[in-house]
């Protein structure tokens, strides 16, 4: 595959400040629903982008006048009907499309300061949020767009940068400025959430802020990225709810020379990374029969993917060759991986 290329399809412009985060609506791109992408920005808005019948992408909604500071992260519920946005204003907003408009149908308050990450579990019944206040909150969705906080998870000693659920299990992972990765499960008997494993530097973990994580589609691998300029692959085959532990498989280093902010695993098994060196890298697993293990190799590096830091890279879940990236330069780019 020497002729792989990442070709820019379209540059989406509209945000007036850095774009922090992107989320593909998982229910779109099939069944007559046009592919839909959400983005959020330092301009205090989120935007909805949709592919029109001509094939080109347009901004179809601007979600504004709700957050009064940076909107740091966004996530669609699995059914694609609700969008959660986390903001530096310490709140999380829940948006629903009503008619042609997006309306804020709930505001989740409780964190002491900046909300940095939001994530739905696979069934859409639980929403996790994390903050500079070092805590992770789990909210349960009730009928009528009510959200009850069912757990406040304490354990990180610094900001929590991102939360993400396992693709099939109700296992939550958080990553932090304290350099660690924490794994949380609900204790069935006590109805309480607790940290069952901490992957720190002594577990071959990261030596600086961990910014993001992503699971492989099967859920048997996890990748994390860090200010230490590396990505780490973890074996997540064992179920933490059944006393199984996760462990370090390998470290990818020497590919980015500034902070790696974002990592995302495609349905096809390709890992994309976006970093403060303005580049995007793609990695693929290679079976190493001699050593009997797996290794991951770089299949493509796109230098100068953006004019400034790349903050988010997200593969389209329906069309796994399409990648979206967001940058400090205020733009979003859609890319096609071609052979």
């Amino acid at each position, binding site marked *: 595959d020497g002729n792989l290329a990442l070709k820019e399809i379209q540059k989406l412009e509209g945000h007036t400040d*850095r774009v922090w985060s992107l989320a593909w609506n998982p229910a779109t791109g099939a069944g007559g629903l046009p592919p839909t992408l959400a983005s959020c920005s*330092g301009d205090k808005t989120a935007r909805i982008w949709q592919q029109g019948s001509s094939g080109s992408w347009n901004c179809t909604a601007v979600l504004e006048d709700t957050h009064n*500071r*940076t909107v*740091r992260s966004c996530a669609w519920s699995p059914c694609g009907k609700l969008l959660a946005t986390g903001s*530096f204003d310490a709140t999380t907003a829940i948006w629903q499309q009503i008619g042609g408009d997006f309306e804020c149908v709930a505001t989740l308050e409780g964190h002491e*300061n*900046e909300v*940095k990450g939001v994530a739905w579990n696979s069934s859409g019944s639980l929403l996790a949020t994390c903050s*500079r206040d070092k805590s992770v909150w789990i909210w349960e969705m009730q009928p009528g767009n009510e959200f009850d906080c069912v757990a406040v998870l304490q354990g990180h000693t610094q*900001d929590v*940068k991102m939360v993400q659920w396992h693709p099939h299990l109700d296992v939550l992972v958080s990553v932090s*400025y304290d350099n660690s990765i924490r794994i949380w499960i609900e204790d069935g008997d006590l109805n309480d959430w607790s940290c069952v494993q901490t992957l720190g530097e002594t577990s071959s973990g990261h030596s*600086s*802020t961990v910014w993001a994580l992503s699971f492989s589609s099967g859920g048997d691998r996890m990748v994390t990225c860090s*200010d230490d300029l590396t990505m780490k692959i973890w074996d997540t085959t064992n179920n933490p709810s059944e006393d199984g532990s996760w462990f370090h498989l390998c470290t990818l280093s020497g590919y980015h*020379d*500034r902070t790696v902010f974002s990592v995302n695993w495609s349905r096809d098994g390709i890992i994309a990374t976006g970093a*403060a*060196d*303005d580049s995007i890298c793609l990695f693929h697993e290679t079976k190493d029969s001699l050593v009997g293990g797996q290794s991951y190799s770089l299949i493509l590096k796109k230098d*100068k993917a*953006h*004019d*400034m*830091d790349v903050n988010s890279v997200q593969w389209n879940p329906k069309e796994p060759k399409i990648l979206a990236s967001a940058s*400090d*330069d205020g733009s979003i780019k859609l890319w096609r991986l071609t052979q």
Partner: protein
Amino acid sequence: MPRELINANPVVHGKKERRVRNDSPNIDEYAEEPIDQQEIFDILIMQNHIIPYYALSFDQVLQYWPNYYELLFSLIFSNHVRDIKDPEHPYSLEELNVVSEDSIEVNDKLNHRDRFVCVIAIAKPSDHFLYRVTFTPTVEHCSMATIIGLCIRVKLMRSLPSRYKIDIRLAPGSHATEAAVNKQLNDKERVAAALENPNLAEVVAECLAPTFA
């Protein structure tokens, strides 16, 4: 109630003499040495878009500007950093020896000098450089270190073209919690959040107010 100062009696040093601009008009535009080096660097550094103006090789650049790096550092310093005010005192960071011309490093990310120069010369639109500024707080437990670092970062962010990468670090050994301060100053999410905090933004605005012109 008067606020208790972290460093009540700082040592105040003199300001370094400003580099004097050679303003003597050169009427003859075909004269042998028409290039005012300083003016060129002012243009290169101050403009938000570096003009694709001097498509010169590294050798040619050095021929015109043998003291290229010295000039570049000096200009960044004089134009961007020296006049930032201390958060506690009516003195500039230069007067308190918090920053000096030696505290600024410029590198292209691959450390290739000639690539760096060529980048400036032909201004490839998305090439970027790394600015590293080190500063020395007046006392080693100074709780103002983060604010000073934040001011330097904001000043450079506002002055330099947006694609420039900026690292801010305490001078090694200058502060009790050096690693923690460095980590905070170089976490762009924390910096962005800090600048949205009205109280912090006000302190930064005061430090950057142009009263030392």
